[in-house]
């Protein structure tokens, strides 16, 4: 038995790293397809665009990873993004000196929305789907009532976030990677991360083990909203103004969930991770990029996206089942 204990496990290919395999294959196949079409998938401009597009969705998806791991979900992110982009742009009002207050205001508001989501779910026991949908509707109503289009203005200095790049890598993509790295550490290495995964794995077990599950869920939702707030900041910087429809039109709610699930997370909670989510986001972005290069009809693109999401999850599920049978 002691001999057995010493053996190390070989790393497994499972749902959380399967997405990277899929990403590799997609890059190769896509690269060839685009090349035969006479274009280049890896050209400077297309790479920049690809990474750029990944950044916004990526930041939201990292936040969504938290909620899904905790067995919850957040459908209000799209509206939080719109709202915070407006708060950012209106607070800045084109002046350099007000960038910091704007950032603080965005973080405060998005954190507060997360808090409300969390309280509704834990204290009033409203299912997360309905709670966040309801909060989303509230924010939507506010936006529609209060805004007739883009508003506010971001100073040029703040637009560096949206437009600058280091080599082929946009600053915003670095921001996404930074957010993902922090999230990775939090989930893997902090007590909160352990508690979050336990809460998502089995709420009762976590509670009976002394985890304050309510508090964990509240913090989880705050983090998710904060990520949406950061995405709102990024979009404000990219658009130069706040946009009341940018979140909903971007489909950030369902797409962020799709990215997380593509990354191998289990919707029921407790299983998945940031690395997978980053893979999921990149996979969606690469598919997008390929279709962009091939100038594929946007509607057909939608069909392919749907098929890819379902097929990927089906493959994960079948692998899991085969493993269970083999055990």
């Amino acid at each position, binding site marked *: 038995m002691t001999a057995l204990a010493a053996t190390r496990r070989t790393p497994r290919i499972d749902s959380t790293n399967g997405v990277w395999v899929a990403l590799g294959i997609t890059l190769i196949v896509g690269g060839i397809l685009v090349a035969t079409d006479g*274009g280049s998938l890896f*050209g*400077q*401009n*297309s790479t*920049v*665009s690809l990474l*750029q*597009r990944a950044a*916004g969705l990526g930041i939201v998806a990292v936040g969504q990873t938290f909620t899904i791991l905790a067995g919850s979900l957040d459908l209000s992110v799209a509206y939080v993004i719109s709202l915070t982009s407006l708060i950012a742009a209106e607070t800045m009002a084109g002046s350099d000196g007000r960038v910091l207050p704007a950032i603080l205001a965005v973080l405060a508001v998005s954190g507060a929305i997360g808090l409300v989501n969390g309280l509704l779910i834990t204290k009033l026991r409203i299912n997360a789907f309905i709670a966040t949908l309801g909060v989303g509707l509230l924010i939507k109503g506010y*936006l*529609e*009532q209060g*805004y*007739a*289009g*883009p508003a506010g203005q971001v100073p040029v200095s703040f*637009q560096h976030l*949206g*437009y600058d790049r280091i080599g082929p890598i946009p600053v915003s993509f670095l921001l996404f990677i930074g957010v993902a790295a922090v999230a990775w550490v939090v989930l893997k290495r902090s007590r909160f991360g352990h508690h979050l995964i336990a809460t998502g794995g089995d709420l009762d077990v976590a509670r009976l083990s002394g985890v304050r599950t309510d508090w964990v869920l509240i913090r989880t939702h705050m983090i998710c909203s904060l990520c949406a707030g950061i995405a709102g900041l990024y*979009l404000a910087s*990219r*658009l*130069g*103004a706040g*946009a*009341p*429809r*940018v979140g909903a*039109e*971007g*489909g950030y709610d369902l797409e962020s969930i799709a990215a997380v699930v593509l990354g191998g997370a289990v919707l029921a909670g407790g299983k998945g991770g940031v690395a997978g989510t980053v893979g999921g986001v990149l996979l969606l972005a690469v598919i997008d990029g390929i279709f*962009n290069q091939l*100038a594929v009809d*946007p509607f057909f693109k939608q069909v392919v996206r749907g098929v890819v999401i379902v097929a990927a999850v089906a493959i994960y599920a079948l692998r899991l089942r085969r493993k269970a049978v083999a055990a």
Partner: protein
Amino acid sequence: GNPAATASADAGAGTGETSSFFVQADYDNEIALRTATASGPADKPWEQALNPTNVDTAKYKKAGPYNLCFSNAGVGNPWRQVGFKNMQAEVKLHPEFKSFQVADAESKDDKQISDINDLLGKGCDALIVSPNTTATLTPAVEQACAKVPVIVFDRGVNTKCPVTFINPIGGYAFGAAGAEFLTEKVKPGGNVLALRILPGVDVLETRWAAAKVAFDKSQLKVVGVEFTDGDAAKTKTIVSNYLQRFGTIDGIWMDAGATAVAAAEAFEDAGKPFPAIVGEDQQDFLRMWQDRKLTAVAPTYPTYQWRTPVIAALKILKGEQVPSPWKLPQPTITDANLSQYVDPSMPPLHYAMCGCSDLPGYPGEWGGK
């Protein structure tokens, strides 16, 4: 004597506050343009311009064939669909273009910004942009201006750098046309219901803002301003509710015609006479108008404007002068010219003011028979 009607009087469902989008100068300008005479070929409104001031484009002159690029906000509604077909067909008319590369932003602002960057890497000779929202695309368009001649149409951007900006007269003119029609046709004191698609879209906001000006000056009672999401069933429900509440509705104003048929049907289903109604140039409405002899008007936001940017691009690349801004005429369909536009062979949501009947592939490409 209707208790509901008296109850509603205090509800004061008037025209509400002025939209933050209302800009008096623009309004005045557009109202003035409605009576301006256009220069250009009479049978080709997409080549006409109102009060043109031409700019010199010699510095963009280069030898063909050209690589034309287009960053499209999206094709998410029939209006954009018809328009995009127009544009594709227009490109085919000109052998000077060796390629036409399109990036579709799927109504996402940030995607469109990336798309523009992406297109710039593909060796465009000229770039046409149909921005998803005004303002937000400004930085991206400014970047593009530095590299290629840029032509913006439909919605604008907050920069003067594009070579030209093409659009019809605009939302104020559109909204005013419908509202003025109602003030003419509905007896003073009559009930008018305003149906809007969505709040917060600039082109639609200006339409309502202008209508509001007209209604505020009139004797009409605006009993409600409702958002329909462009959904026919919801529109019908709303109109039915209003009919029940007020007994009669004498006029319907709309900021876009997509649900005009549904609104009219609600009267039919309730057994009430049709009101005076504002629609748009979509075939289903025009057909109903003709069949049921509606009292109607159809202001248009012509889809033929999608042809103009291609024409402009060619002129610019050839170094010819172009109007900047390029204001296109914005005709209104009335009883007098209705029969000219009704075409039973086209799909119900086809826009009659497409100026496309002479284009290659018509009518099949547009879904007609």
